[in-house]
């Protein structure tokens, strides 16, 4: 008995220490969104919840839209929800039925969100509101559609592809400016390494900053691997997925990354870095080039004081197989009942993020650009074209013109994207793949004697065994 008591005590003590979680909870549309007075609530993720210094205009605009929408739709209340997608608390919010009715996330997460039953199928609503005819589904449908069904809509203006961002000052210091005053953009990855070396030799600053952790290293490295001709996975005749990135082409791409450190010595000191490190170094004039998408520059402006006038962007450099750039976007996802989700689409339409153009939507676009201008962010560079209707595209162009903060010539090479082939993330276990590629990058950056072929083979075998083979 005494032994039993001790065992119970031990189990209790260890149990208190672990505290694992597990509960069965709600899915999409579990809450009907009605309050005690019968009002129907919809909540919009990533909205300003209070008026603070610096966001006065965004807050006021949201409140104006809210008042207008509620007046047009009696019995409906729009709630601002400050939450933006965050992996750390997504699952708990989703299970607790605490997700905003509409929130945005990256395409990387969509498979998991859909597979776990947290995403509403909005196909009927999309068709009802005419999005299906105006969205460029042929080109971008992979971002928000699964098995022919719509699970999301691209957040207006968030569509991006990868390119190289340049610190113009450092290029000037290194004498790498052409007759038009533009940095001499490297056309190939090899040229990029040479350019980075010149920068380092002439200025002593980091030529090129690369990410290597938090999955972001793999995310960026993917673009280099495509350029060298590598692919990531394929499906066999039985429908089973096989990892194939440890090919000669993949090894050549990894060797290139290794050379950046051990042959050219152009990388940052903080080799275990996420993308924020590169952004910070670029902003503080400590680094000349990073891989990034245009929208991230606004983040670096806000967080690290990057000057919009000191940045240029070019399309992604070419490798032996061509120029390849990953396409991504912020995707609006929906978690409410059909009724709530429909109201969200109406909301998007009213605030000018829908496919149709109205005076109100033109005004909203202009105000958004005015806010960005005040924050010193980049206005005047178009993102990739999501919409098929010219009226919508022209309205966006017109709304940008009065608030331009950058000379578009510094971004023309990037926006024109001549010769760039756009790619989407692989279909399976994307986060795990990014983490695996992070690991390969870390190994070759930290060990001069690392054998790229052996490293990549090991990483591929682990990825296959631990993830693809165990897919249900």
């Amino acid at each position, binding site marked *: 008995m005494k032994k039993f008591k001790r065992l119970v005590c*031990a189990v209790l003590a260890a149990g208190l220490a*672990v*505290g694992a979680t597990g509960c069965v909870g709600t899915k999409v549309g579990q809450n009907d969104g009605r309050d005690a007075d019968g009002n129907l609530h919809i909540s919009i993720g990533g909205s300003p919840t209070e008026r603070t210094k610096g966001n006065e205009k965004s807050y006021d605009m949201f409140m104006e839209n809210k008042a207008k929408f509620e007046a047009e739709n009696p019995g409906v209340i729009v709630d601002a929800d400050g939450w933006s997608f965050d992996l750390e608390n997504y*699952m708990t919010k989703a299970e607790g039925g605490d997700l905003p009715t509409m929130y945005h996330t990256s395409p990387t997460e969509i498979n998991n969100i859909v597979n776990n*039953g947290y995403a509403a199928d909005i196909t009927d609503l999309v068709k009802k509101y005419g999005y299906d005819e105006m969205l460029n589904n042929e080109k971008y449908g992979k971002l928000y559609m699964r098995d022919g069904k719509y699970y999301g809509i691209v957040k207006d203006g968030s569509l991006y592809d990868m390119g190289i961002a340049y610190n113009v000052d450092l290029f000037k210091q290194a004498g790498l400016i052409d007759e038009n005053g533009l940095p001499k953009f490297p056309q190939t990855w090899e040229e990029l390494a040479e350019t980075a070396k010149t920068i380092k030799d002439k200025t002593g600053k980091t030529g090129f900053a690369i990410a290597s952790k938090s999955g972001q290293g793999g995310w960026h490295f993917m673009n280099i691997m495509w350029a060298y001709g590598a692919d990531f996975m394929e499906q066999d005749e039985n429908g089973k997925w096989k990892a194939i990135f440890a090919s000669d082409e993949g090894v050549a791409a990894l060797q290139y990354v290794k050379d950046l450190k051990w042959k050219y010595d152009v990388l940052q*000191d903080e080799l*275990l870095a996420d993308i924020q490190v590169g952004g910070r170094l670029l902003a503080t004039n400590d680094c000349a080039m990073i891989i990034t998408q245009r929208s991230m520059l606004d983040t670096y402006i806000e967080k690290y004081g990057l000057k919009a006038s000191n940045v240029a962007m070019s399309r992604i450099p070419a490798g032996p197989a061509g120029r390849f750039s990953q396409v991504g976007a912020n995707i609006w996802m929906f978690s409410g009942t059909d009724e709530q989700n429909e109201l969200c689409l109406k909301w998007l339409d009213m605030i000018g993020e829908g496919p149709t153009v109205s005076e109100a939507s033109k005004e909203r676009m202009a105000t958004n650009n005015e806010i960005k201008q005040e924050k010193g962010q980049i206005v005047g560079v178009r993102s990739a074209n999501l919409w098929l209707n010219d009226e919508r595209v022209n309205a966006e162009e017109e709304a940008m013109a009065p608030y331009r903060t950058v000379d578009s010539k510094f971004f023309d090479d990037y926006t024109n994207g001549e010769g760039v082939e756009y790619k989407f993330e692989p279909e399976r276990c994307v986060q795990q793949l990014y983490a695996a590629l992070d690991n390969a990058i*870390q190994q070759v950056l930290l060990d001069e004697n690392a054998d790229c072929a052996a490293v990549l083979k090991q990483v591929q075998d682990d990825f296959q065994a631990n993830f693809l083979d165990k897919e249900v």
Partner: protein
Amino acid sequence: MKSSNNINNLRIKRVKGKLTIVKNESMMWLLLLPTVFAIILCQWNPVVRGVFTSFFRTKGFSTVEFVGLSNYKNVLHDTMFLKTLINTFSYVIWSLIIGILPPLALAIAINETVHFKEGFKILLYLPAVAPGLAVSIIWMNMYSPASGGMLNSILQIFNLPTSQWLLNEKLVIPLIVISMTWKGYATTMLLYLSSLQSLSQDLYEAAIIDGAGLWKRITKITIPHIAPTLLLMIVNQIIGVFQVFDQPLVMTDGGPNNASLTLGLTSYKMAFSYMQVDRSMALGTVSFLILLGATLFYFKMQKKLEA
């Protein structure tokens, strides 16, 4: 017949005895009830659900299909499992090497201090009130491999070669453990100190009269007196460090080359990055069983000490 009556009487007496115990202890059980209820609801409910979930395939947090030991098979056959397990034990071992002595030494030092004792206590306790995330970021910056990094700058002052710090696979775990020790030593120190202060000064005075020096007083009086607290702290440390995940998450994300990846961090990534709750629960249960072993060991050791 007589013997059968005796047996019946004995049984009745036993039952009566038990009823008396229940009656006498009923108030105690009544008082315990809210606590027991709270423990079951807040602590055991998630643990039991976690173990339960580990035998199912999940969709989000919901169980959809019983899969037996399949999740355990997946977790234990993961090519990174062994490395992660070794890493986790490595954290524990380094924490015992690095983490045991500082709080003990500081507790003894404060106990021996005559002046400004309270001031020292407050000063030494300050790291414990710093937010864990902030501490990790501060140490991450101190360990910066750049030549301008804080520790590298100090090395350069003395013309010593700079270090890669957290980028060094062999150093990464002890370096993270140092940051954890800095954050956690103060609470342990106070517990040692309270134990020391319950020790009668007469014993020290008698030892001094007998000619015992400082070292002898520590080894013959202090350590034996605080041994139960010391053991409890060691076991607590093992349990706490075994679950480490936030420091490597912030400082290295498990790198370089998975050298600082732990069971806790892997479990976290499975659940929150890869949304594989079932496997995460299975891995959590494996950790739980290992910790259960450590806790049983603690009770065994405590029994020995009590004897």
